[in-house]
């Protein structure tokens, strides 16, 4: 049985991801197109929220991926700290802008939905606030990557920042909960509830979530490949200058 660590070899990683990238990207596109079209045009309007309810198909999946993106970075950082595989550090680096974009999508769609529903673009609600803080964490993480020239130093520092940041992100989440009561409704989906959102909305939503997950994976694969190749190119250029 092949070990998962063989993908720590950059060449193996590129080979494998090259092979599966079109499938991941393709199925992501399919799931998103089908899910969004189904969601937007073939589900009834909610009797209270009208057609604004349909933004759920962008809002929930992107919010989900904003958090999972950070968790993925956390895991990749841990792997870098423990086993020092460069691909892992690069994957964490590659995931950050994608995760930050997901956070922005979640915030913006939330604001667009909140304007007609709550009558305000923004409220200092715990969920909204903690997402804003999560976005700040993403920004700091990316800025630290960009600021350090030595690649290994940058990987080390950012992974420690990611670990410490995760703890503080969780702390902030609870602190913010304590600080203000919320407007935001409870989780739309959870595994331990009998019924989540009504069935008509449920299936296209699942499809959209799958689409966003696959989109995230595809983007991270692509960006990691780019990082690996950029680093190779720098090494080649440096060698040429020497030789």
């Amino acid at each position, binding site marked *: 049985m092949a070990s998962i660590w063989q993908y720590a070899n950059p060449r193996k990683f590129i080979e494998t991801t090259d092979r599966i990238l079109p499938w991941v990207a393709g199925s992501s596109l399919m799931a998103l197109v089908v899910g969004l079209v189904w969601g937007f045009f073939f589900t009834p309007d909610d009797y209270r929220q009208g057609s604004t309810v349909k933004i759920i198909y962008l809002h929930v999946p992107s919010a989900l991926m904003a958090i999972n993106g950070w968790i993925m970075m956390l895991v990749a950082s841990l792997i870098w700290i423990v086993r020092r595989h460069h691909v892992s550090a690069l994957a964490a680096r590659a995931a950050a802008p994608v995760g930050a974009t997901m956070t922005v999508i979640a915030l913006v769609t939330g604001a667009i939905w909140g304007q007609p529903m709550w009558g305000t673009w923004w409220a200092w609600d715990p969920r909204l606030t903690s997402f804003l803080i999560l976005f700040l964490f993403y*920004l700091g993480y990316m800025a630290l990557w960009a600021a350090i020239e030595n690649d290994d130093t940058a990987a080390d520092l950012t992974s420690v920042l990611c670990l410490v940041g995760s703890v503080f992100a969780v702390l902030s989440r609870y602190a913010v909960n304590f600080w203000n009561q919320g407007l935001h409704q409870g989780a739309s989906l959870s595994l331990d509830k009998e019924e989540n959102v009504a069935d008509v909305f449920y299936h296209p939503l699942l499809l959209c979530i799958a689409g966003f997950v696959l989109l995230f994976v595809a983007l991270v694969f692509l960006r990691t490949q780019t990082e690996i190749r950029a680093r190779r190119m720098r090494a080649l250029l440096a060698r040429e200058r020497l030789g």
Partner: protein
Amino acid sequence: MIALLTRDLRLAVRAGGGFGLGLAFFLIVVTLVPFSVGPENMLLTKIAPGILWLGALLACLLSLDRIFALDWEDGSLDLLATSPLPMEALVSIKALAHWLTTGLPLVVATPVFALLLSLPEAGYFPLVLSLLLGTPALSVIGTFGAALTVGLKRGGLLLSLLVLPLYVPTLIFGAEMARRGAQGLDMTTAMMMLAGISFGVIALLPFASASVLRVNLR
């Protein structure tokens, strides 16, 4: 360790700039607030705990890059790193020195500044207590940020971007405790949480700071 602490304190007091500057900055923030929101005492009373907490936090932030920068420039940080003192102890001492030169003066001066913002009488004790509990956390977290950015030439802005999100929980519980105290509400939960955060970061964060400092000195 004691020698290092006294050296840092002496440097901070004699070299000028670090010691009084935080306090002066705090005073300016407090002076500017009534200009920006208007001089009504009612309003000031309401926002005083929050403003004082924010001012203390910013004053703390301002002096963070001095924690390691000077020692880094003249090479004494490398010497300290090769000394028998463990790196964790080094960063803890640095954080303690920072707190003694910035945090503690802020705590002591706060009642005077609170007077300017017409804080109600009941609010003084909770405010000072919350700052006393919270500023050590600010120093320790700031030391982590300073250790992260020590090698960078223009680390100042980046340092703020990294450290401010980490300050969120401390600020929330600190300001909440001061606010509740000023309004005569029960503040036990906020106080417990604030103390928990402070002691937690004092116990754990020096390990992270030491590890990033080691990377930066490599």
